[in-house]
């Protein structure tokens, strides 16, 4: 489904690797800055991507993030191999979390991650199989009219 006018890059995310956690999102932010995406939109993408990246680091063994940019949209897909989410509806509620004490000490695990991702993306999709992994897709429209 790759288009001729689409930029695509895949990043690996390692589970439990807290010293590099957030590095992929920083890189994405820099790419978006280089190609001149409006600052407001970069913030939205960076926040959503960072939360998704932290989720992989905290809950999964490994994962990957695929960034696709075309003239209309920025799309981020995050796929991980890990424990998955049993009840997505519950996980989407602000304040609900299955985080361990260690994750909370990192400043995360307050049950804000998925709601933050949903709030910042224009289209948000999540599927998960417990014991297998989770797939997230976020779409951000470059055209502000479409976004509202």
């Amino acid at each position, binding site marked *: 489904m790759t288009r001729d006018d689409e930029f695509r890059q895949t990043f690996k995310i390692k589970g439990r690797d807290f010293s590099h*956690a957030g590095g992929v999102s920083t890189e994405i932010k820099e790419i978006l800055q280089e190609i001149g995406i409006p600052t407001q939109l970069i913030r939205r993408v960076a926040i959503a991507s960072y939360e998704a990246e932290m989720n992989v680091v905290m809950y999964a063994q490994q994962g990957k993030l695929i960034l696709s940019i075309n003239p209309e949209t920025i799309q981020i897909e995050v796929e991980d191999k890990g424990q998955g989410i049993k009840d997505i509806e519950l996980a989407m509620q602000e304040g609900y979390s299955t985080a361990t004490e260690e994750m909370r000490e990192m400043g995360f695990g307050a049950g804000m991650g998925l709601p933050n991702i949903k709030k910042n993306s224009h289209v948000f999709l999540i599927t998960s199989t417990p014991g297998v992994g989770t797939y997230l897709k976020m779409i951000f429209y470059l055209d502000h009219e479409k976004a509202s």
Partner: protein
Amino acid sequence: MTLKEIKELLQAEVICGDHHLGTEIILAGGSDLMSDVLAFGKPGLLLLTGLTNLQSVRTADIIEAKAIIYVRGKKPDDQTIKLAAEKNIPLLSTPLMMYEACGLLYQAGIPGVSPANNSNKAND
């Protein structure tokens, strides 16, 4: 209010980013929860936190915060300081606790980021 004036007000020491002390600060927020900072933080924020790990700097970078002040005399490790220097984010440490540090800044006229806060002129 400049970062230098804030440093004096909070009896803070500069961990890195001395050359950024002239930066003007127009809004601030305090939290140890990085997800809260991501949800409510605004560009230009001065972040007060008790969380000293790498994620404090990563979060500040993502939301485009101007600086971080660690409360209760806490100091980050070398790896975190190195990342902050790379990202041009000045780090300070105050012996004050979160409540006092935030209170002094608010008293000095620096607004917060709460949506319910009418005195938040930084949104204009």
